[in-house]
């Protein structure tokens, strides 16, 4: 089971590495969306400081949605998915491998870039680790939930928009706890509770989402 | 009885606009839903009848049992 996980993980990472330009698009989208906000709300420092956690989190959420519909599309098109489903290996293991690879290539860059962008909003330096940590806990949840949505809308016409409609309401708790962690730290109440809840959410998503995703893929390929 | 006159009833203590907008929209939505549901059934029957004729199963004919969905 672990070998399948690792094999699929390595394969997907290699494929992503060959198409590096696509990865940069997600990151660039994140940076640009974040940089648009000062133009929209004005460059007043206090205001920017106040909206920074929310802006960074919403931008991360949209960026992680951007390439989600391609998570299974390629494998669906060339028949790999069918082969994987037919194989005797448990579907959960390779689904998890694909999601982890997806997070490493799209989620992790956002986590790394976020503190730098936070500096543009003049966020207190002490809050940067909290921001990074909350994103590191939260973006995997986004990837896991998103994978379920991507599997459900696989090959459906208008799949991209549909995926956003399906998944965005489910992202709300992650957004609340993620942005809330930073705000709570800035407000002096400490971010422990928020981060614990995010961690719990991640554990729950890890336990449930791969199964739901595998079931959805099976339905899609029937 | 709560109301001195019909006009007092319609005015709802000054909040008539809000109250009647609520009830009006709800009524409109319910009527719309009922109309849609009834129309949908009629459309389905019409469409399926046309489909049956196209497939070659005439009215009153002993329609050969095509593949069952089961």
């Amino acid at each position: 089971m672990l070998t399948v996980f690792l094999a699929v993980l390595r394969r997907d990472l290699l494929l992503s590495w060959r198409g590096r330009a696509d990865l940069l698009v997600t990151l660039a989208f994140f940076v640009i969306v974040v940089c648009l906000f000062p133009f929209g709300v004005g460059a007043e420092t206090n205001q920017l400081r106040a909206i920074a956690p929310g802006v960074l989190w919403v931008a991360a959420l949209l960026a992680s949605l951007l390439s989600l519909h391609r998570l299974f599309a390629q494998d669906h098109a060339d028949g790999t998915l069918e082969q994987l489903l037919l194989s005797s290996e448990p579907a959960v293991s390779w689904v998890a491998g694909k999601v982890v690879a997806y997070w490493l290539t799209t989620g992790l860059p956002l986590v790394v870039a976020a503190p730098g962008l936070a500096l543009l909003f003049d966020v207190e330096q002490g809050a940067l680790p909290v921001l990074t940590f909350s994103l590191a806990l939260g973006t995997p949840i986004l990837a896991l939930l998103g994978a379920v949505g991507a599997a459900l809308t696989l090959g459906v016409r208008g799949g991209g928009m549909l995926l956003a409609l399906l998944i965005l309401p489910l992202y709300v708790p992650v957004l609340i706890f993620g942005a809330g962690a930073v705000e709570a730290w800035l407000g002096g109440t400490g971010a422990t509770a928020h981060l614990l809840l995010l961690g719990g959410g991640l554990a729950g998503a890890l336990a449930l989402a791969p199964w739901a995703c595998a079931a959805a893929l099976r339905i899609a390929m029937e | 009885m709560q109301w001195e006159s019909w006009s007092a009833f319609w005015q709802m203590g000054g909040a008539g606009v809000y109250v009647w907008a609520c009830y009006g929209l709800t009524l409109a939505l319910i009527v719309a839903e009922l109309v849609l549901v009834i129309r949908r059934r009629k459309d389905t029957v019409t469409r399926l009848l046309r489909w049956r004729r196209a497939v070659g199963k005439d009215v009153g004919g002993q329609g050969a049992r095509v593949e069952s969905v089961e």
Partner: protein
Amino acid sequence: MTNERMTNPDNPPGRSPTSWLRFAAPQQFYPLAGRLAPWFACTAAVLTVVGLYIGFFVAPTDFQQGEVYRVIFIHVPAAWMSMFIYLVMAFWAAVGLVMNTRLSFIMSQALAPTGAMFCFVALWTGALWGKPTWGTYWVWDARLTSQLLLLFLYFGFIALTRAIEDPRRADRAGAIIALVGAVNVPIIYFSVQWWNTLHQGASVSLTKAPSMASTMLAGMLLMSIAAWMYSIAVALWRVRALILERERHTEWVGEVLEAEGRAR
């Protein structure tokens, strides 16, 4: 209606000793739904009339809010129904996935539009009630926000089941998203409440319900039951259309269609 014609001649209705489970077969359920739906609709109509009479003519004026509170007679039933219907939808989805019964999926899809409608009614009436009482159409209160997200969940379910053309896949994909949504509803509610207590933006306290006169409560309960009966009636009617659509290859649907065609 020619209900007799619709039943299967091999299995006369009402005589068979088998349990009510046989109604899980679309062929048995179609005439049953047709017979039951008008009764539910009539009950709903009668209860609505009685409930509105109590609500408008018997229930006293609220001493805090005046007459605006009379919106409650649709607001609260609509909010209750929208949540309840989502749960019932998820229940049928789960039954469908576990027992593999087509009718369960059809039920959950027939319920969704009505649930979304009630959800919208709850939001609309909440906004119009809010303006005169709190001075604003909308506050980002936990309950209002959860209701809004519930509406989005309904939209997602309806959009997904409509977008997938293969009914078998649409059924199962819809069932999964309904279940994922149902798991998330408590999480969403909890998170939104948490978020709301941290952001003391709105100075309106919504939790302090005004003490209700028993006639107000009676009106509200009657309207809630009416909303419930209405939902069942509409869902049953919708189920009938969906069954015809899905079972169009079978002989019994052919007979139903011929009967309908002759009646026109």
